[in-house]
C-alpha cells in the first residue's frame, strides 16, 4: 500500500465509522456476496435487510473476522483497515456484535455479567463491590436502563437482557473505543411490547457517536429507527436509500421483487371443498395438555394459538408421538395412532415438522438430499443398492418446486440459510403425500419470501386433501392462512374460531384470557 493511499483513507476515517468497498465472498464457487459497498457515519443507524441467504450473515461474519472474503475488497473501521479472518483485529478496531443469543449467564448478576471478561474494580485482587457497582450503573445508564446491577440476569425482561449485552459490548477495550456496533436481529425473539425499549437502547448507543449496523427482518422497526437502509438480495446490494425516501411497500418490493404479492394473494385466497374427517383427537392429555378434542377434515387448515405454556408448543408433538401422551385417543382415517411412536404415526401418513430445525428437525451433518429422503427411503431401495440417481432427481425436483437456493442437493443441510433449510424439511414431509400435516412454528426465523413460499406449499398440501394443522406464536400467520383457529389456554381449547372470527386481536385476546376485545365481546361459559 502506498503512503498516499493510507493518507487518503486516514482522512476518510474521520467521516466513516465503517467503510466497506467491493466486498466479495464466494463459497465453493457460489457467490454469497458480490462487490458490496457500504458506509456508515459515526452515530448513524444503518439498517441492513434481506431475505435469508441474501448475504447479511456473510457480511457480519466477515466484519467479525470469522470469514475471509475473496481478495480485492477492503473494510475500514474508523479509517483503519480490518485484517481478514482475524477476530482480534475486528475487536481491536472497535467492532462489537450483539446477537440473538446474547451470551449472558442467567445465574449471575448483571454486575458479574458485565465484568466477567475483565474490568472489575479491584484492590489487592479483591473486587471492590461499591466501585464496581457504580461503574456498572454508569454503563447501564449509557444504554438507557436503570436497574440494580446486583439483580440476576435471569430475572430481567428480554429487552433488559439485550441492554445488558449492549452495555457489556460498549465497554472500551485497552486498544480503543467502540466504533461500530452490529445488531443481528436483536428483536426477533422479543415480545412486541419490549421492542420499543430495545430501540431506545440502540438510539442511546448511536447517540454516543458509534456507527450502528442493524440487521432485522422486522421492517416496521427500520422506519422508526434507521437513517439509511441497505437491501441485499442474492448476495447483491439492491439499493442503499435514506429511510425517509421509502415506504413499507417500496421496501418490500426492493426486498423480494414481485414474489411476495403473488404468493401472498394465494395465501389469502382460501377455498377448497372440505372432505370427511381425517384426524380425530379425543380427550388428549399430556403434561400441560388437559383434555383436548377436535376433528380435522381433508382440506382443512387449522391454526393452533396460545401463549407460551398454554400447551400450544407441545400439542402437535404429542399428537404425532414426539412427546409422550398420558391419555386420550388420536386417529388418522379411523386408525388409532399409538403414543410416542413417530414411525407408527408416519405409517398412517401423518407428518410432523418440529419447531426447531436445528435441534429436532434436521440432521445438520447430512446432506440436503439425505435429510429430504430420510422420511421414506423405500422408493429408492432396489436390492442391493439405494438408487442414488433416483433419489437425487426426486430431491432436485423438490428443490425446484420449493425454489431452494442454492440448488445444491449434495451440500450439507447446515450450509443452507434458515429459510432454505426449512424448505428442505418441508419437502421431506411433502414427499410422503401426508394425510395429516402437523407444523410447529413453520416459519419462525424465516424471511418474507421463503415464508410466502412455505405458505403456498402448505395450501397446496391442503388442496390435495391433507388436513393441515399449524401451531404458531405468530398470530398474523394464522390469520393469513387458516380457516379455523383453536386457541389454547391452560392446556384446554378455550376458543374455536372459524373464518369470519379470525383476527389478530381476537386470537391475542383469547390467548391471554382477556376474552375478546371490547368491540366483539361475547358471553362465554367459563
Amino acid at each position, binding site marked *: 500500500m502506498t503512503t498516499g493511499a493510507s493518507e487518503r483513507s486516514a482522512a476518510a476515517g474521520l467521516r466513516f465509522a465503517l467503510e466497506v468497498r467491493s466486498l466479495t465472498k464466494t*463459497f465453493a464457487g457460489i457467490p454469497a456476496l458480490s462487490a458490496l459497498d457500504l458506509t456508515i457515519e459515526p452515530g448513524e443507524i444503518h439498517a441492513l435487510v434481506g431475505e435469508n441467504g441474501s448475504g447479511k450473515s456473510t457480511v457480519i461474519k466477515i*466484519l467479525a*473476522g470469522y470469514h475471509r472474503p475473496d481478495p480485492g475488497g477492503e473494510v475500514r473501521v474508523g479509517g483503519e483497515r480490518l485484517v481478514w479472518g482475524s477476530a482480534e483485529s475486528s475487536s481491536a478496531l472497535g467492532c462489537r456484535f450483539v446477537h440473538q443469543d446474547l*451470551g449472558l449467564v442467567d445465574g449471575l448478576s448483571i454486575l458479574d455479567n458485565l465484568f466477567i*471478561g475483565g474490568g472489575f474494580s479491584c484492590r489487592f485482587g479483591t473486587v471492590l463491590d461499591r466501585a464496581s457497582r457504580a461503574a456498572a450503573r454508569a454503563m447501564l445508564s449509557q444504554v438507557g436502563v436503570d436497574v440494580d446491577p446486583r439483580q440476576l440476569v435471569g430475572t430481567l425482561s428480554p429487552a433488559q437482557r439485550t441492554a445488558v449485552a449492549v452495555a457489556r459490548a460498549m465497554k472500551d477495550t485497552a486498544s480503543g473505543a467502540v466504533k461500530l456496533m452490529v445488531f*443481528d436481529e436483536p428483536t426477533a425473539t422479543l415480545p412486541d411490547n419490549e421492542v420499543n425499549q430495545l430501540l431506545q437502547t440502540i438510539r442511546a448507543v448511536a447517540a454516543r457517536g458509534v456507527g450502528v449496523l442493524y440487521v432485522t427482518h422486522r421492517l416496521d422497526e427500520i422506519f422508526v429507527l434507521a437513517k439509511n437502509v441497505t437491501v441485499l438480495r442474492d448476495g447483491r446490494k439492491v439499493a442503499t436509500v435514506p429511510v425517509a425516501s421509502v415506504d413499507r411497500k417500496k421496501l418490500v418490493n426492493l426486498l423480494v421483487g414481485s414474489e411476495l404479492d403473488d404468493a401472498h394473494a394465494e395465501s389469502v385466497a382460501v377455498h377448497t371443498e372440505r372432505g370427511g374427517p381425517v384426524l380425530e383427537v379425543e380427550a388428549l392429555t399430556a403434561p400441560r395438555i388437559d383434555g383436548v378434542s377436535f376433528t380435522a377434515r381433508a382440506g382443512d387448515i387449522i391454526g393452533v394459538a396460545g401463549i407460551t405454556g398454554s400447551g400450544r408448543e407441545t400439542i402437535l408433538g404429542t399428537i404425532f408421538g*414426539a412427546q409422550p401422551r398420558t391419555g386420550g385417543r388420536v386417529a388418522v382415517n379411523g386408525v388409532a395412532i399409538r403414543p410416542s411412536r413417530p414411525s407408527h404415526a408416519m405409517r398412517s401418513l401423518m407428518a410432523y415438522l418440529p419447531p426447531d430445525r436445528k435441534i429436532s428437525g434436521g440432521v445438520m451433518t447430512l446432506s440436503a438430499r439425505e435429510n429430504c429422503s430420510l422420511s421414506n427411503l*423405500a422408493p429408492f431401495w432396489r436390492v442391493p443398492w*439405494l438408487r442414488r440417481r433416483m433419489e437425487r432427481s426426486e430431491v432436485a425436483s423438490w428443490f425446484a418446486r420449493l425454489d431452494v437456493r442454492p440448488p445444491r442437493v449434495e451440500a*450439507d443441510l447446515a450450509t443452507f440459510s434458515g429459510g432454505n433449510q426449512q424448505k428442505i424439511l418441508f419437502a421431506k414431509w411433502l414427499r410422503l403425500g401426508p394425510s395429516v400435516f402437523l407444523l410447529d412454528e413453520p416459519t419462525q426465523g424465516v424471511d418474507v419470501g421463503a415464508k410466502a413460499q412455505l405458505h403456498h406449499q402448505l395450501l397446496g398440501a391442503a388442496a390435495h386433501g391433507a388436513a393441515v394443522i399449524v401451531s404458531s406464536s405468530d398470530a398474523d400467520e394464522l390469520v393469513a392462512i387458516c380457516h379455523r383457529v383453536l386457541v389454547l389456554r391452560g392446556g384446554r381449547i378455550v376458543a374455536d374460531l372459524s373464518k369470519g372470527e379470525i383476527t389478530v386481536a381476537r386470537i391475542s385476546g383469547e390467548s391471554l384470557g382477556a376474552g375478546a376485545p371490547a368491540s366483539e365481546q361475547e358471553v362465554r361459559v367459563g
Partner: protein
Amino acid sequence: MTAPRRRINFGFDRFSGAYLWVLFIVVFGVWTPSLFLTSSTLHSVASQEAIAAMLGIAVLVPLVAGAYDLSVGSVINLSTIVVVVLQTSHHWGMWPAIFVAIGVSVVIGVVNGFLVVKLRVNSFIATLGMATVVTAIQEIVSGESQPLPPVSHAWNALTQTKVFGFQIVVLYLIILAFIVWWALEHTPVGRYLYAVGGNPEAARLSGVNVDKWTWVAMIASSTICGIAGVFYASLTGPSLTFGSSLLLPAFAAAFLGSTQLKPGRFNVWGSMLAIYVLATGVKGLQLVTGKQWLNDMFNGVALVGAVAFAVWRQRVAGSKPTAAPEPSEAEAQATGPGGAGSTREAVPASQHATAAGPDPAHVQSTAQ
C-alpha cells in the same frame, strides 16, 4: 443434475492421506530402495495391519451411530482365546469352535446394546465397563495361562494361504470393508445409522427406530471383533494381551478416516486409507532406523497432526464452518459460526451424555 459440483475434487482436505502415502513411498523408496521397494514389504505391511484395520471397521460402525464401543479390544481377545481353548483343551472341531467364538462375541454385543439402549447407560461408560468384564471372562476361560496354538492344517490354512502373494487375511479385510461400506453407504440401514449419529431426535421424528439401530450397531461391532479374533488366532497364534494394544489404533483409524475422502463423516475407505498410510510410514522409518518405538510415536503424531490439518483446511476454505467462537471473545460477542458449527457440536453432545460425542466435527472443533 447440472448443478455445480463441489469445487474441491482432489483437494488436500479430502486426499491429504493419499498424498502423504505417495510421499512416504517416494521418500522411503529413494532412501532405502533395496529394503522398502520390495514385494515382501508390501505383503507384510498389508497382512500385519489387517487385524487392526478390521478393528478400525468395528469401532467405526457404532461411531457412525453416535456411540463408542471401547470393548472391541477385549472382545477380539476373548474370541481369540475361546476359539483356541475350545480346540486345544476341549478338542472341538475347528468350525464349531469358530462358531462359538463368534457367537460369544455376538452375545457381548447384545449386552452392550442392552446397556446402552435399555438401561440408557452412556455408551462410553457401558463399553468401558464391559471391556473389563470381558477381560475377566477371558482370564476365566484361559485359566490365566496362554493356551497352546491348535495344530491342524485347516486351521493354519484359514489365514495363511497366499493370494497373489498376500496372506488371504488381506482379502478377508477387503471383503469385510466392502460389506460394511455397502451397508453404510448404499442401504437404508446405513442412512439410518448416520442419521442417528447426526441427530438422534431428528432421526426419531423422521420415523427412524433409534434404539433398534443403535443396538444393531453395537452388535455389528462385537461381531466383527469376534471374526477378527478368529483370524488373529489363526494368523499369529493365541495371545492374552494383544487386544488392548489395538484399541487406540482402531479409534485413530476411525477418526483419522473421518478427515479423509468424505471429510466430517466416519467412512470405511477413509479409515482403511488412514491405517495403511500410517503403517507405511512406520514401516519405512523402521527399515531406516530399526527403532520399535516409532510405531507409537508415529501413530500419535499423525493422528493429532492430520486432524489439526483438516481443521485448518476447512477454516481457510470457510465453506463448512466448524470453528466455535473463542471464549475470550465472549465480551465482544464476535460472530460465531451461526447455526452450522454450533449445532454440529451441540447436538451430539447433548443427546449423548458424554462431553465428547463421537462426532468427527466435534473432534475437529476440540482440536482448536
